[in-house]
């Protein structure tokens, strides 16, 4: 656990970088510090491993005030990942990863074994072990940076914009793998970013900081989106926060209902009878898996070429965002809900999703 208690950082020239920051980064969670440049997020991070000194207030790690610890020992017990990875250009990949074990005086064989294991863990081929950083792509270097931070198996990690120097596609996959890795490792992580999407995607708790180094809001991502504490937070999250907020509401409460269906191979009469006044009918296969939409328009031609794509389906275990995606992609404006085995359960229209969201929002508020 990392705890900030009214921490302030003031430089000699009077600039206040961090102003009375209090928050707790819980064990095993990812705590994201997010905010525009100049908000003091990196300063806050660097105060944790004492590469920047606190002016007033205290930071404690597992209950112990860091001011009373030896800085070098503290640092060797907290992993650190930086933008551009900060790899040592004169050392091979395996030696870069083994840096902290080397500093801790482990024997070479053990350090190397750990380093090779970590390479695989972060998705790097061990064939790269004897390469130098300059021979790796930006994404690969960033993986090495993560592996290096994990080498001595520290319980805590500090990450300073670790994924912002790579292109969006690589960033996305690095983020996904990072989350997968964290599921296995359960480290206590403080993560700095200026990218609110990244904060919402990765954070268990998100601290939004504003210029002047004050904390605007500290909350889980869903709460941040549904109840921004002030205009700054609302503005920082951006216009489409409502839509993003759907990712945090489950689809299980949606008023899913029956609608007309036909089985594959049904006769024209069956279709006409099933549809009634509707424009489209949903076609299911023999296992009741939805296959597609059939436009009727008065005529009941059921040749397979006329079948319209289903779009995406959702299950009650997914989120409102998945349901809305399905509804928007469907020709009838209805999202198709299936159970865990992919069998048809019912449909829900985007109007109904919106209505549900309003009631859900009122209940939550």
């Amino acid at each position, binding site marked *: 656990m990392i705890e900030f208690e009214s921490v302030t950082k003031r*430089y000699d020239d009077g600039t206040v*970088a961090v102003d009375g920051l209090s928050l707790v980064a819980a064990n095993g969670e990812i705590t994201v510090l997010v905010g525009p440049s*100049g*908000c*003091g*997020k990196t*300063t806050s991070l*660097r105060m944790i491993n004492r590469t920047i000194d606190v002016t007033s207030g205290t930071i404690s790690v597992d209950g112990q005030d860091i001011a009373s610890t030896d800085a070098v020992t503290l640092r060797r017990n907290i992993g650190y990942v930086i933008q551009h990875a900060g790899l040592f250009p004169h050392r091979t990949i395996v030696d870069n990863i083994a840096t902290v074990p080397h500093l801790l005086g482990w024997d070479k064989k053990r350090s190397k074994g750990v380093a090779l294991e970590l390479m695989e863990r972060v998705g790097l081929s061990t064939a790269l072990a004897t390469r130098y950083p300059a021979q790796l792509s930006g994404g690969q270097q960033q993986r090495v940076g993560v592996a290096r931070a994990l080498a001595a198996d520290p319980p805590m990690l500090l990450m300073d914009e670790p994924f912002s120097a790579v292109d969006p596609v690589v960033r996305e996959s690095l983020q996904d793998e990072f989350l997968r890795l964290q599921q296995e490792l359960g480290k206590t992580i403080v993560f700095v970013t200026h990218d609110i999407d990244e904060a919402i995607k990765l954070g268990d708790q998100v601290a939004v900081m504003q210029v002047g180094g004050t904390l605007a809001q500290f909350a889980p991502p869903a709460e941040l989106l549904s109840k921004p504490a002030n205009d700054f937070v609302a503005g920082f999250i951006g216009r489409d926060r409502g839509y993003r907020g759907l990712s945090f509401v489950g689809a299980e409460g949606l008023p899913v209902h029956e609608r007309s269906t036909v089985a594959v191979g049904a006769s024209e009469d069956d279709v006409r009878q099933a549809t009634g006044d509707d424009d489209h009918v949903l076609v299911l296969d023999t296992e009741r898996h939805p296959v597609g939409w059939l436009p009727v328009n008065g005529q009941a031609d059921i040749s397979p070429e006329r079948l319209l794509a289903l779009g995406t389906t959702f299950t009650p275990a997914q989120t409102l965002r998945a349901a809305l995606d399905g509804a928007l992609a469907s020709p009838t404006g209805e999202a198709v809900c299936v159970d865990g085995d992919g069998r048809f359960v019912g449909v829900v229209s985007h109007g109904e999703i919106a209505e549900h969201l309003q009631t859900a929002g009122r209940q939550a508020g």
Partner: protein
Amino acid sequence: MTLFNELVAFLSESANWSGSRGIPVRIGEHVLYTVVALAAAFAVAFPIGLLIGHTGRGAFLAINIGNAARAVPTFGVLILVVLLAGLGFLPVLVALVILGIPPILTSTYAGIRGVEGSTVIAARSMGMTERNMLLKVELPIALPTVIAGLRSATLQIVSTATIAAYVALGGLGRFVIDGQQQRDYGKMAAGAVLVAALAIAFDLLWGLVDRVVVSPGVSGRLPRTRRARDADSPPPTTGTTPTDPLTPEPAGRPT
């Protein structure tokens, strides 16, 4: 420190400050040799450096002449030229010019080559003639490097002119060589101190020239503008790298 006292004694003897072998005359000779040799070396090396730098043709020559010149002992070159052409002012001058050429040629070439490709493309795209590009864009940007080459060449020539007293040239080297033969350390040391002072004076002069002729946009000597510091970054712990006008590029070396 008797050696030091001898130096002071020589310098405070008024007889040493007058006459055709006095200190002012020797300084004048040394300056004359230096200026004439430097001008001649510049006249030869500068246009060639510009041409090679602009066209990129003959780059091999420009790079290697600088390297080769460093490997050849200047003292040996001086003696070789004198043995070939005989004693006297002109042969020694030829040697000084030869030694002054490589630093100027190499640095002019390097300065012009060092201009960013995008800058050259921009100039060409705006319809500048090759001549205009060279004189109005490339040369002003290359100027600090060109001046660094001139500084190196100046030091080289001042140094070698000192040694040239050994082959019967005038200048401040006379005091060193004559003092050595007469076992007069005061004389030797006076020559050495004066030539050191002269070299430093020339170097300061080049520093001044650099300051006057190089555009502030190129040298980075701009009036300080107050910029709000990013509160996220700690204050700089190391000083900014100063562009120091007093230090020549190691293109050539004094001898």
